[in-house]
């Protein structure tokens, strides 16, 4: 099987790119795929913390690019999954330490290593770091929250992805609160899609277990509790990335049928 490079980006910061990268990489590895996650956020590295691999870092992405180590030496093997690796960002440098062609080079080497997936965690913003992350991508996933400012930035980034001819981007809506949506206090999934007009590949509910997992360095996708909605949401995204048609979790399931029917009418 050939290698697929997926870049996770958003425009706006703090919408959950790193968490989603860690969880998607984990979920794909749990399906026995060879996965490497790359932290492209040079100078503000986080992915290692979320994946619980911070203390294992010896070499990083910039060391590879500047020839201080071989690629394999910078690939940190996950402590739980056999075929999950992390290439961390350099913390003491900035975005200018890496160029788009460097990223192409690293990804091509990883293709030769026989990886199934390369997941790149893009930094926020639309500048150099974004260009670095997007250049080697085969597919791009845009993350947004159901808030107007995040959607606005996602729209901008989707336009830039189209301009780079990396589109059409897929969308993940993170941190949906079904109760707030039901009360009309939060943008619904439909509202977001209405503006962005791209295919959706994941809906992730607001769930404390995600934050707890990130703080502990154990992505929630790896948690053994099945049926937990957040964990399941990430596993479903991995399935969809693999090309399976998985229905979306009904996040309104807790409300009564009557509420949903009336909700339907008030939307139209």
């Amino acid at each position, binding site marked *: 099987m050939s290698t697929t490079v997926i870049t996770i980006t958003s425009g706006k910061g703090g919408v959950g790119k790193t968490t989603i990268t860690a969880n998607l990489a984990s979920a794909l590895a749990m399906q026995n795929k060879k996965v490497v996650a790359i932290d492209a956020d040079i100078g503000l590295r986080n992915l290692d913390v979320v994946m619980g691999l911070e203390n294992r870092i010896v070499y990083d992405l910039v060391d590879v690019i500047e020839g201080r180590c071989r690629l394999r030496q910078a690939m940190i093997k996950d402590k739980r999954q056999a075929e999950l690796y992390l290439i961390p960002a350099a913390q003491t440098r900035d975005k200018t330490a890496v160029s788009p062609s460097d990223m192409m080079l690293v990804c091509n080497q990883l293709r030769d290593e026989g990886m199934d997936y390369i997941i790149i965690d893009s930094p926020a913003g639309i500048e150099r770091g974004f260009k670095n992350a997007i250049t080697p991508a085969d597919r791009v996933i845009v993350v947004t929250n159901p808030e107007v400012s995040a959607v*606005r930035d996602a*729209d901008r980034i989707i*336009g*830039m992805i189209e301009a780079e001819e990396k589109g059409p981007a897929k969308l993940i809506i993170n941190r949906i609160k079904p109760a707030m949506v039901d009360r009309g206090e939060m943008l619904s999934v439909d509202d977001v899609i209405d*503006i962005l*007009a791209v295919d959706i590949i994941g809906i992730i509910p607001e769930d404390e277990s995600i934050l707890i997992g990130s703080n502990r360095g154990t992505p929630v996708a790896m948690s053994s509790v099945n049926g937990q909605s957040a964990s399941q949401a990430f596993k479903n995204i991995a399935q969809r990335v693999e090309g399976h048609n998985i229905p979306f979790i009904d996040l309104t399931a807790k409300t009564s049928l009557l509420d949903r029917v009336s909700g339907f009418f008030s939307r139209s």
Partner: protein
Amino acid sequence: MIQQMSEQLQIKGVNDGLLISLGSLTYAEFLNQLNKTLPEKQAFFQGSRVAIDVGPMKLNGRHIAEISTTLTQYGVELWSILSDHEDTREAARKMDLGTRLGGSQTDLDGKPLQTRHKTQTAVNPSLQEDLIIKETIRSGKSIYADGSIVIIGDVNPGAELIAGGDVIVWGRLRGLVHAGAKGDQAAIICALVLNPTQLRIADKIAIAPDEKQTAVIPEQATITKGQIVAEPWQPKSISKTS
């Protein structure tokens, strides 16, 4: 940018390139000046395009060809001859040169285009045309046209369309639109769903009401009694604005 070549010969930067005015020079003096100045200021002129304002002077095709050749020698393109004399303009037209600032002034049939915008001055000829774009215009994208803009697709918040003429959106308009940007009060904006962040027509600005329009009702915005008014589109409302 104004550069004095001599007492009478004046060079001015316009959007289209450079404009050289003869002032009270005779044709022979002008050619003389040109031959003297061009080699001196070759770096300044190199690769530029020049319009020449000859005032009331009567020039024939041979004169114009002579000017053009002189300019070409120094890498300067002659693209327009401005004159008060009809014979001079006729001669320039025969040589496929413009006779006004603002790019080509003739349509496909060779007839002069009627200028709708009286305030129009020199503009980039590449922006003269109308634009039809078949895609969603996303946040951060800015589209300019000297003429009208037609978008087949949505215009999202954070995007802007600026047109000298009308703007038509076959889709949902949620961004910013400025129609009649050069002062045309008769410009219109219409959209299948008119839900803009802001509308501007000529020098008027309007903000959409707070309640969000969700139903698909085509609307058209015009300047009516000195302010921008949006109305549901009806066949009869066309005659009101035409």
